């Protein structure tokens, strides 16, 4: 039975149901309970945005607050995963990866290979990403490209409540380390979500909109901006196919390539910094494997190569918007050699 709930509720529900389902699932993170050791309420926060609220009252010690000690607790999640649990650790902002990257990069990601296939590390790291709320340079980044670069990690970037639930449950059940990037501006967006437990497979893109003129590939929040642009363009007779890869690692090459084979024209929309990014990754895939079908340069719509500025007036210029996407699409649609 599907109901309309928010992205935030979908994530909470996924955690709740999977914890109910599997006693080896535990949660840890800073203030994911909130109130530990204090005189007031427990479960005061449920994370800074309340995503995990209600889980501590239900699951008790399986939901654990941590000191501010990302290396230790992300590492503990990794170690617990290699010891038979299925921990879901919350890295509050993905920008904080810098203080704990080693435990992800050199430990979790490499165990399976480095140990000759003899270790499994079913750890999930949930983390918030993206710009748009005036959180400035150290709380607004989109570093999923960095994680995608690292062999041994699976990377999920859900753009809507349905995907958020299904992909998170899959992440928890997956036997490899998975990093889930949740866009902070999407938490309040709504969508239809089945009440039951369900999983969505990794590496299967979602064709969010069909269209034969230009292929737009977009991630997370950018899917919505791309759809917005596509609507405007449709009014002018330019039909965009909008593809949401949903997971960047593994990436659904096939769906992307098939679409490009039929449109010959591509715009990639990525909120991450432009160098060595998912935008370039997908572009390079196409330039190698669908070159014969390409009829125009591959355009990328990304932020500029700068940190995320604080002032609203700048941040709005920084993040790709529907207008910039529209311009890029018109450019490739109108291109001829």
């Amino acid at each position: 039975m599907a109901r309309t709930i928010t992205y935030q509720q979908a994530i909470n529900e996924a955690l709740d149901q999977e914890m109910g389902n599997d006693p080896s699932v535990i949660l840890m993170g800073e203030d994911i309970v909130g109130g530990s050791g204090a005189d007031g309420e427990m479960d005061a926060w449920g994370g800074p945005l309340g995503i995990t609220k209600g889980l501590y009252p239900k699951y008790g010690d399986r939901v654990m607050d941590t000191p501010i000690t990302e290396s230790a607790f992300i590492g503990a999640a990794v170690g617990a995963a290699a010891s038979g649990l299925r921990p879901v650790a919350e890295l509050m902002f993905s920008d904080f990866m810098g203080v704990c990257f080693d435990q992800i990069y050199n430990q979790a990601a490499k165990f399976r290979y480095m140990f000759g296939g003899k270790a499994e590390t079913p750890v999930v790291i949930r983390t918030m990403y993206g710009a748009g709320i005036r959180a400035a340079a150290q709380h607004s980044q989109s570093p999923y490209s960095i994680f995608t670069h690292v062999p041994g990690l699976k990377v999920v970037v859900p753009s809507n409540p349905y995907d958020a639930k299904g992909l998170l449950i899959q992440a928890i059940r997956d036997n490899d380390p998975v990093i889930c990037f949740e866009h902070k501006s999407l938490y309040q967006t709504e969508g239809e979500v089945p009440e039951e437990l369900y999983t969505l497979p990794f590496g299967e893109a979602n064709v969010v909109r069909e269209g034969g003129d230009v292929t737009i590939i977009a991630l997370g929040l950018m899917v919505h901006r791309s759809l917005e642009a596509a609507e405007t363009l449709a009014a002018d007779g330019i039909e965009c196919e909008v593809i949401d890869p949903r997971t960047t690692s593994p990436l659904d090459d096939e769906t992307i390539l098939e679409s490009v084979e039929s449109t010959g024209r591509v715009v990639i929309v990525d909120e991450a910094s432009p160098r060595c990014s998912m935008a370039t990754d997908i572009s390079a895939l196409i330039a190698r494997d669908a070159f014969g079908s390409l009829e125009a340069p591959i355009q990328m719509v990304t932020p500029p190569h700068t940190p995320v500025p604080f002032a609203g007036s700048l941040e709005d210029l920084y993040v790709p918007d529907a207008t910039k996407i529209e311009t890029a699409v018109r450019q490739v649609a109108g291109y001829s050699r």
Partner: protein
Amino acid sequence: MPLDREELLHAYRVMKTIRVFEERVHDEFATGEIEGFVHLYAGEEASAAGVMANLTRDDRIASTHRGHGHCIAKGVDVRGMMAEIYGRTTGVCHGKGGSMHIADLDEGMMGANGIVGGGPPLICGAALAAKVKGTRNVGVAFVGDGASNQGTTFESLNLATVWNLPAVFVAENNGYAEATSSRYSVGADSIADRAAGFGMPSVSVDGHDFFAVYEAAGEAISRARDGGGPSFVECRVNRYFGHFEGDAQTYRGPNEVEDLRANRDCIDLFRVAVTTSGDIAQADLDGIDSDVDTLIDSAVDEARSAPRPGANDLLTDVYVSY
């Protein structure tokens, strides 16, 4: 009194400016005019003022996400700070940094920091620079009780001892890291005691007491200036507002803040001390109060009417040249 009249008046002005600044930001945030993550320092003023009363302009500090108080006490322009928080071109960082990233290297303020534990390594560097250049300057890193558990903080304590740096680490223990009590997060009886394991002297003081902070920090800072190496100072303080603006604070005990405001307010305590001792007259303090009100009013007015950065500002300040 260990300070002369001018110094006492300055200390009061600093504390009062921080308080009024923060109360005003709190109000303006509520109206929606100020955006983003804003962490207010109200309640902890004696810590910033007491430490900074021992520093010169060329000494350096590294602050935290809760940085307004440190900035003001270190001498960063209050109008520029307000404009920064409003995201205007007249801000000290041109509107690019915001509350969590106010910095002014000219004033020896190396930045608020959005990364908990980000500052201590940087201050090791500032202290190292002073040592290499042979100045008598020092570096002071502020951390919270939460930040005191971060690996970067511990590493910095060790490095400062190994290199015998002119560095002081000030732990502002306000009892909470976000919604988590330090009783939970600090796996030790005392934050200050940890310093022993890093070979440096430490002291824990009542951070509501400006004079206690002033003296403890003063001793640590003099030792650093004299080549005596790093020290650790814990200031036990309290914050009046939520972790950030918007925090409902249900994790706090009933009347916790009300009691603090009524009984442990650092500005009240300071007023009583300096007037009772006869060093300063009530009227002088009242005069400062009204100066400060005027300053903050005009800072807000100026910020409001200042221009917002635009397309021309987006791509500047990335590299010197590319």
